């Protein structure tokens, strides 16, 4: 569709969702009037939330014919994997967009369980399930019109990069829309694009460096509180009040929006540069703040962190060092 008489042909843009909630696609719309600039500079060739284009149409496109694909969502099933592979082939630049594509995100919490545990809960045990024959979904089912197929549900949730080669990562749950505009501009102009494999649309600093709450260097913690257990004074660093805030283990770039709204950071922007595992980073930071020397006292304090694994890896379990719970 590009007209050769136009000196700067529009770039071809695709936005796709794997195992996602839809929030990332909405964040693209949240660019507000800037969306019009994007649409002016780009032809949207594929965007399931907004346009009716079939997989077979994408499969029929020439290799490398899409300039930029924003892939959001994790890879949870064979359909996600298939589309990740197709889009990798068809795209010049493939971006893992948002926490799920980047680190596994909220769907990645399923890696605390096995596929069997999940199916048992969903198809047999859940309070609203009535399934005396314990029927489970099957991947292929023969009917008189032919064979019906549904995607295979994997045992593990994967990050996009664990499945295909990824050029850039944009963190966030969802990413801040302003960051997307910056990255998009960099891709169309080719100016200011960092080396392949970089995290873009975020800072090199941690959220704590950006945070305006009052803080001291010597944090000492006698016990931890869940946010609802204390009254936040709205000005002192959450950690210093004993509330776990992922700020020290989280890359800045969101504008510390949760803390600004008086909620502790949950780490959706992922680990800061030079650390691959946000939980390890967090354990390292808060381990040293625990104000006790005897093993018993330390145990008592740690007892007040109810679910360290779920808290420290809320957005990052599949991409973390261990990747999943051992089965």
């Amino acid at each position: 569709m590009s007209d050769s008489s136009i000196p700067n042909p529009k770039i071809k843009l695709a936005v796709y969702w794997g195992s996602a909630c839809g929030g990332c696609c909405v964040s693209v719309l949240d660019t507000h009037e800037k969306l019009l600039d994007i649409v002016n500079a780009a032809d949207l060739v594929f965007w399931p939330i907004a346009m009716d284009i079939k997989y077979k149409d994408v499969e029929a496109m020439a290799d490398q014919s899409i300039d930029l694909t924003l892939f959001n969502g994790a890879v949870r099933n064979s359909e996600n994997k298939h589309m990740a592979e197709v889009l990798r082939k068809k795209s010049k630049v493939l971006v893992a967009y948002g926490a799920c594509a980047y680190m596994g995100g909220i769907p990645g919490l399923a890696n605390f369980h096995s596929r069997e545990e999940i199916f048992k809960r969903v198809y047999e045990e859940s309070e609203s399930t009535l399934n005396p024959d314990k029927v489970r979904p099957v991947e292929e089912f023969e009917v008189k019109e032919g064979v019906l197929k549904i995607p295979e549900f994997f045992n593990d949730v994967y990050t996009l990069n664990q499945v295909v080669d990824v050029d850039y990562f944009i963190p966030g749950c969802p990413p801040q829309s302003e960051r997307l505009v910056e990255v998009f501009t960099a891709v169309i102009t080719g100016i200011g694009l960092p080396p392949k494999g970089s995290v873009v649309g975020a800072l090199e600093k941690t959220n704590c460096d950006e945070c305006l709450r009052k803080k001291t260097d010597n944090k000492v913690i006698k016990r931890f509180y869940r946010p609802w257990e204390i009254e936040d004074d709205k000005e002192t660093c959450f950690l210093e009040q004993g509330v776990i805030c992922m700020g020290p283990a989280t890359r800045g770039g969101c504008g510390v929006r949760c803390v600004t709204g008086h909620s502790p950071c949950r780490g959706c922007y992922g680990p800061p540069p030079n650390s691959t595992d946000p939980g390890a980073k967090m354990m390292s930071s808060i381990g040293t703040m625990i104000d006790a020397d005897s093993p018993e006292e330390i145990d008592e304090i740690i007892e007040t962190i109810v679910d360290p694994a779920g808290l420290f890896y809320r957005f990052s379990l599949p991409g973390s060092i261990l990747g999943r719970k051992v089965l």
Partner: protein
Amino acid sequence: MSYRPTIVAFLCNWCAYTGADLAGTSRLHYAPNIRIIRVMCSGRVEPTFILKAFQQGADGVLVCGCHPGDCHYHEGNYKCLRRFKLIQKYVDQMGIEKDRLRLEWISASEGQQFAELVNNMTKTLLLLGPVKIQRSLEVQHLKQ
């Protein structure tokens, strides 16, 4: 192939490593399953080191430092203990058996104790069998 557990051990330079050295110079016989990594202080051992060791196939991870009060850098082993307790809880949640991860204090003169510790831990790991973490991950196989 018969299973031989591998223990990755982080030993602080000033006490634990010297203790392990003493076990060697005293020609004590002990299980050959240990791979020692010398660090300046047990306080240097980051959670990442421990997790990476497991991820790369260690069946057990051992951290050894100076006895409380004896750390060359005063506080390092207390810092280590606090972090260790936290990571222990995490590792347990992740389904890695508690006995695979140990923290012990070894002084420069405790060569004998060090040898016994390694023997003990090796025995425990033999009973536990190989670490299951790699087997439970399909991740490695997805990307061609």
